């Protein structure tokens, strides 16, 4: 599924937890692992890296790449050069006002990466498999792949609950222009709007092995990313999986937030953005 995984690290207090997560993710997908460090590269750093990797049990199939310059740019350029399928990094849940508009490293990666990205909000030393996962089956050319990745992870980690969320677009407008109907017709339209969305998800699920998974298809309406974040918070989910948007986001998307921008601004939990473009390219 992800053959080459990279993890972006810095010598921060979270280093060991991130490496522990990297180790588990490498095993989960049985893949090669690239460690990317942007910053100084002294002999002391080399030794520090070596001992950290050892402590995390990372010794096989590992490549360490040292880079210097703008962290987000360098990380993304390494991913491109090394044909990375999945980039893992740590992120704070909330962005402050300045970072929201200027963009922290984590958010720049989320917005601009050409590969899949797993952003961990609370990396831990101990194995912490996802118990409640949410997959967004919406508005992305990669929604089906997101469902496939999500169900795969769900099965391997024996997730307790897997929610697949689909949005009814312009529900308010659809209902208000239907107001010239009788009460029965109106409730039929309302029911059909929900059922149509459920059917779309069910059709995708037919192509996916979901044996043993407890799946709940949830239909929501409202501002897509915002309602999705609300749903993750309400269900106390620990991993949200979404397909990558069909274009990269810019400053306008921050001023007029929509879809994933709502999620980026305030990560409800760990987020995996599925973007298999590299494979195709």
């Amino acid at each position, binding site marked *: 599924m992800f053959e080459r995984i990279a993890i972006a690290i810095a010598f921060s207090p979270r280093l060991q937890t991130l490496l522990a997560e990297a180790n588990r993710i490498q095993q989960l997908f049985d893949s090669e692992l690239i460690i990317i460090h942007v910053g100084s590269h002294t002999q002391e750093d080399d030794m520090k890296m070596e001992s950290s990797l050892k402590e995390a049990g990372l010794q096989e199939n590992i490549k360490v790449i040292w880079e210097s310059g703008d962290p987000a740019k360098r990380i993304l350029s390494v991913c491109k050069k090394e044909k990375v399928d999945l980039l893992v990094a740590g992120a704070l849940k909330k962005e402050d006002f300045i970072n929201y508009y200027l963009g922290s490293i984590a958010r720049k990666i989320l917005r601009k990466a050409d590969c899949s990205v797993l952003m961990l909000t609370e990396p831990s030393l101990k194995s912490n498999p996802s118990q409640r996962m949410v997959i967004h089956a919406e508005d992305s050319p990669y929604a089906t792949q997101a469902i496939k990745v999500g169900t795969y992870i769900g099965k391997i980690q024996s997730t307790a609950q897997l929610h697949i969320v689909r949005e009814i677009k312009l529900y*308010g*407008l659809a209902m208000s222009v239907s107001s010239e109907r009788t009460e029965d017709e109106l409730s039929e339209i309302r029911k059909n709007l929900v059922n149509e969305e459920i059917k779309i998800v069910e059709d995708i699920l037919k192509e996916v092995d979901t044996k043993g998974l407890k799946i709940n298809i949830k239909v929501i309406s409202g501002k897509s990313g915002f309602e999705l974040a609300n749903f993750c918070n309400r269900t106390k989910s620990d991993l949200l999986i979404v397909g990558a948007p069909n274009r990269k986001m810019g400053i306008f998307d921050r001023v007029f937030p929509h879809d994933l921008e709502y999620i980026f601004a305030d990560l409800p939990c760990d987020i995996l953005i599925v973007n298999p473009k590299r494979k195709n390219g």
Partner: protein
Amino acid sequence: MDKLNHSEVINLLIQLCVMLSLGRLMAELARKFKQPAVVGEILAGIILGPTILGNFTPEAFEMLFPTSGASAVVLDGFIQIAVVLLLFIAGLEVDLHIVWQQGKQALYVSLVSLIVPFVAGFIVTWFFPEIFDYTDQSKQLVFAMFIGTVMAITALPVVARVLMDLEVFKTRMGMLIIASAMIIDLVGWIIFTIILNMMGSNSESLSLSKTIWISIGFTVLMLTVGKGLINKALPWINKRLAWPGGLLSLSLAICFLGAAFTEYIGIHSIFGAFIIGVALGDSKHLSERAKEIIHQFINNIFAPLFFISIGLGIDFISAFNLQIILVLLVLAFIFKVLGATVGARMGGLSKYESMAVGFGMNTHGTLEVILGAIALNEGLITDEIFVAILVMVVVTIIASAPLMKYCLKFVPTKN
């Protein structure tokens, strides 16, 4: 404080009763023919107005709808409020979120389908005003801009309904039409605000450049700072006040405040109501259910009063001018359809899909009627031109669904 006397209260209540009940009846009749309520409501106005009731029983018409006196003033007040509220829900329908999602494609469709008919309408009106029997040379520029704007606008609620009936509402093409109509609404109303100011009926009219800057400034401010404030206030309202009562009354309060503000600074009240609607509708905290309730409330109580009132002031038979009607229809069916089709082709849609978008975007409706009614009140257009606009609106509404359906026959699969 002046008050309505006993008979004026009775008269006003009967006016409202007759308007709402005949409006409903005619809207139901329109529904039977799969047409939107607005078509029936305009017909109800024609029946109740000088065209039919006034011609056959002038005494009854005079008694029911006196042109002077307190009840006429109060009814006019109701209609003014109705226009402001209609613009407010027109703003609510503009979902910037969908516009961003559709990106460049929607921008192509909207801009080309706005520019081509606007320019065509402007040129024809500017160079051949005699076609419209238009003699006021001092207002020729504004008039040309007005006809251009009427041609350029797309009626979002009507086209949304057509798309739902054709079951293409949620397709790529459907969303593209919806997003493009939303952009046109936003730009169209800024243009119309400028036209209103150029009409110069307001004694404190602003200069053209000032109007443009204030309109754009107000729009940007409301969509950034204003939306931020709304985003802060709505969760508090939703949590602590009765729902939907609190939301309804405070939403309308802010709508009236915005309308009063834009009226005060010299741009028309409807612009304020529209932009407040856009800002509120784009808030992540305004639920779709709440939007639906606000829509229902305004669409079923205030909208009929406005659309029926249109027929009360005009004799449609004497103001029927076939030449003007045909000119507007030709302009709409050639240039609006052409503009939208070319825009959709530029956006990468197939030939027949683009043609379907073209016919879909050539759906006129509520906003054109409001625009026409204001222009008529301000003395910019004649009864004949207004009637021609109404006919054009009704014809495009009736024609859009079958024409789109025909084009979609040639589209291999729904995407």
